[in-house]
């Protein structure tokens, strides 16, 4: 059962960390920084992919850091769920990184994105990996803090008034949720004397019901803020849209999913008693509905996408609340799908902003005729998110609905109905943007950016923003001309949209994997046995940290 390869798991955190350190050493040599960052990401991706294959064949693997046995030593656990999350998150981050590099280079300055971008991005990835691998609660907390601190820097990068304003909300809310997490950690340690998750799984069950419920709810609130479930989601649409496109894209894809991942662990490993699944059902229902109604009211593409993000977190919470192996398998697949699709949509929104000068729907029009490629790049993930067959969004939702019907209480049926209705509303929100931004004529737009008119007036497509840089009223007025749609940016987005389509093509094996992940999630005793096995049987760590 023990495998040598999975013992390399700490490297998934260490490689990005080392990459960030090297980045700081060569801070003034942009090209080298870029090489190091991309290299570190590719290396991490290869390692994660190998680990996924390994874990798929041999089951959960445990790394005892420094060779100390759990529950006294710190452990990292690689099971199917964490390995899949690691692979998907690094794929997405790599696409976003290429997009960001290209955006910086195409932005006119050869310096690329501000030199702080690369190391911070790597630290973000390290934090996310650490959270996915953490075998004890405190390590999870540290992972959260690493990724949050990196995200503060990324969100406020450039320090414009708008970003600072959005950053304040984001930072304050995140810090409060971290403090809540810390308080619950303290209480859990006080009640049980351990922070190792496997050990907790055994010891929490012996506590009185009331204490269990209190600890459970406190953890859930702390993770709920991070996962943006209603009513703890109000910070998200306020802060995400102001950041630059690649930053928003990676946040939307990864950060909320780390919260969802933690909720899965809480519900399946720490408190498998299904104490509050009814509450989770209602929370899921409200998250779906309120999120999508918010999305329908927006006229800014990025804000609209932020609201659909919240809405679709509701689907995952629904699956977790149903809690059967079938439902959890659908949730695992749905998370992978949602990370990829939501990130690609935000990347496309960045391209729309570049080509049309704005993300405000009133200012955009006729983009399909101007750039058919962009149209396809938007439409495929948009339909995917709306749940049109045969895309992965449809498959994930069918999985959830089947699981809901199989559970069969009236609340499950209500949630099934609402989830179908919400996917219809999602489609409506996405298609409305499609109609207005891509299909209508430029003349019909309320206040079209001159860069859109320039195309139709001259009868050819301008490659750079030179045509409008001298004219007033455009976003590009008075700035140095930039390439409107750089090939590498479009390439990175296309690649990610392609990955989204591949999720459909390889849905069979993926559902197998998700099924075996869910099987392990519903049998927490396997996790406990793997972690608490004496060192040597669970695999000894070869490399000390």
């Amino acid at each position: 059962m023990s495998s040598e390869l999975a013992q390399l798991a700490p490297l998934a955190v260490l490689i990005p960390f080392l990459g960030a350190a090297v980045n700081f050493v060569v801070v003034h040599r942009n090209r080298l920084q870029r090489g190091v960052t991309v290299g570190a990401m590719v290396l991490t991706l290869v390692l994660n992919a190998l680990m996924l294959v390994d874990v798929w064949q041999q089951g959960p693997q445990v790394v005892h850091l420094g060779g100390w046995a759990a529950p006294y030593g710190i452990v990292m656990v690689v099971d199917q769920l964490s390995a899949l999350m690691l692979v998907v998150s690094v794929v997405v981050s790599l696409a976003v990184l290429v997009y960001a590099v290209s955006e910086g280079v195409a932005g006119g300055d050869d310096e690329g994105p501000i030199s702080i971008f690369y190391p911070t991005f790597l630290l973000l990835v390290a934090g996310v990996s650490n959270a996915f691998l953490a075998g004890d609660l405190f390590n999870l907390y540290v992972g959260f803090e690493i990724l949050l601190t990196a995200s503060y820097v990324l969100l406020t990068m450039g320090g414009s008034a708008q970003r600072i304003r959005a950053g304040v909300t984001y930072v304050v809310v995140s810090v409060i949720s971290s403090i809540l997490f810390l308080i619950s950690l303290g209480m859990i340690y006080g009640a049980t004397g351990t922070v190792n998750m496997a050990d907790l799984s055994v010891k929490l069950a012996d506590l009185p019901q009331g204490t269990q419920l209190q600890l459970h709810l406190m953890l859930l609130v702390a993770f709920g803020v991070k996962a943006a479930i209603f009513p703890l989601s109000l910070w998200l649409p306020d802060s995400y849209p102001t950041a630059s496109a690649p930053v928003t894209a990676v946040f939307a894809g990864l950060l909320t999913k780390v919260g969802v991942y933690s909720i899965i662990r809480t519900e399946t490993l720490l408190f498998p008693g299904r104490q509050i699944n009814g509450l989770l059902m209602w929370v899921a229902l409200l998250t779906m509905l309120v999120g999508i109604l918010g999305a329908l009211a927006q006229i800014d593409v990025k804000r609209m996408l932020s609201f659909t993000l919240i809405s679709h977190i509701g689907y995952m919470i629904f699956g977790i609340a149903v809690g059967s192996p079938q439902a959890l398998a659908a949730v695992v697949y749905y998370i992978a799908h949602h990370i990829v699709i939501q990130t690609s949509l935000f990347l496309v929104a960045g391209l729309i902003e570049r080509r049309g000068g704005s993300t405000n729907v009133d200012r955009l029009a006729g983009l399909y005729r101007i750039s058919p490629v962009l149209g396809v790049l938007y439409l495929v993930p948009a339909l995917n998110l709306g749940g049109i067959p045969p895309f992965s969004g449809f498959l994930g939702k069918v999985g959830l609905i089947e699981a809901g019907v199989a559970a069969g209480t009236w609340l499950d049926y209500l949630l099934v109905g609402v989830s179908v209705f919400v996917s219809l509303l999602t489609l409506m929100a996405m298609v409305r943007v499609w109609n207005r931004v891509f299909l209508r004529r430029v003349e019909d737009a309320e206040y079209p950016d001159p860069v859109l008119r320039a195309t139709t007036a001259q009868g050819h497509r301008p490659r750079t923003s030179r045509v409008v840089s001298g004219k007033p009223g455009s976003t590009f007025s008075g700035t140095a001309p930039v390439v409107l749609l750089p090939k590498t940016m479009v390439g990175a987005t296309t690649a990610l949209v392609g990955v989204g389509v591949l999720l459909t093509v390889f849905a069979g094996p993926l559902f197998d994997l998700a099924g075996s992940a869910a099987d392990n999630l519903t049998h927490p005793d396997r996790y406990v046995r793997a972690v608490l096995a004496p060192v040597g049987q669970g695999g000894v760590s070869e490399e000390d940290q």
Partner: protein
Amino acid sequence: MTVNLTLLVVMGVLFSVGVYLLLERSLTRVLLGLMLLTNGANLLILHTSGVPGAAPLHDKSLDGSEYSDPLPQALVLTSIVISLATTAFVLSMIWRSWVLARRDEIQDDLEDRRVAQQSSYDAEDDDAMPQDTSEFDHADARFTPSRHNEEEAAESPGHHRVEKLHRDERRHRHEF
């Protein structure tokens, strides 16, 4: 488990003052609130180690139960370092906000305010003078809203007129 009353009271004060400061609109006070809350949480964790004992260094003459529990101290140390970094970051944000706007206040989201100001009025559906698509020459067509709702009309008779009034008022305000 023994409880240290002094620590408990200090913790309570830290938490309550922290929450109070957090609700302020001034950024500096929010930061102070966050710091107090973090310190409250740190005390809580420290508290879980119970009665302090001997330093946790191996000593043959001591029984295992006589040592202090070192783990909470390690946890608190980590949390202090993290809160130090966060505090430094928030401070720099406050400074930046001061440089940019000369104010130390949390500002409203413009987009939120814009959405909030949108009336339920819809140019296509609620216009008091609808495009008459029927063949009939309806005498009152000018003054009947095209999407007339009986319930709404009973609740607030003339709400269309009120809405129109508001709109005119707003237009006025823009002019001056």
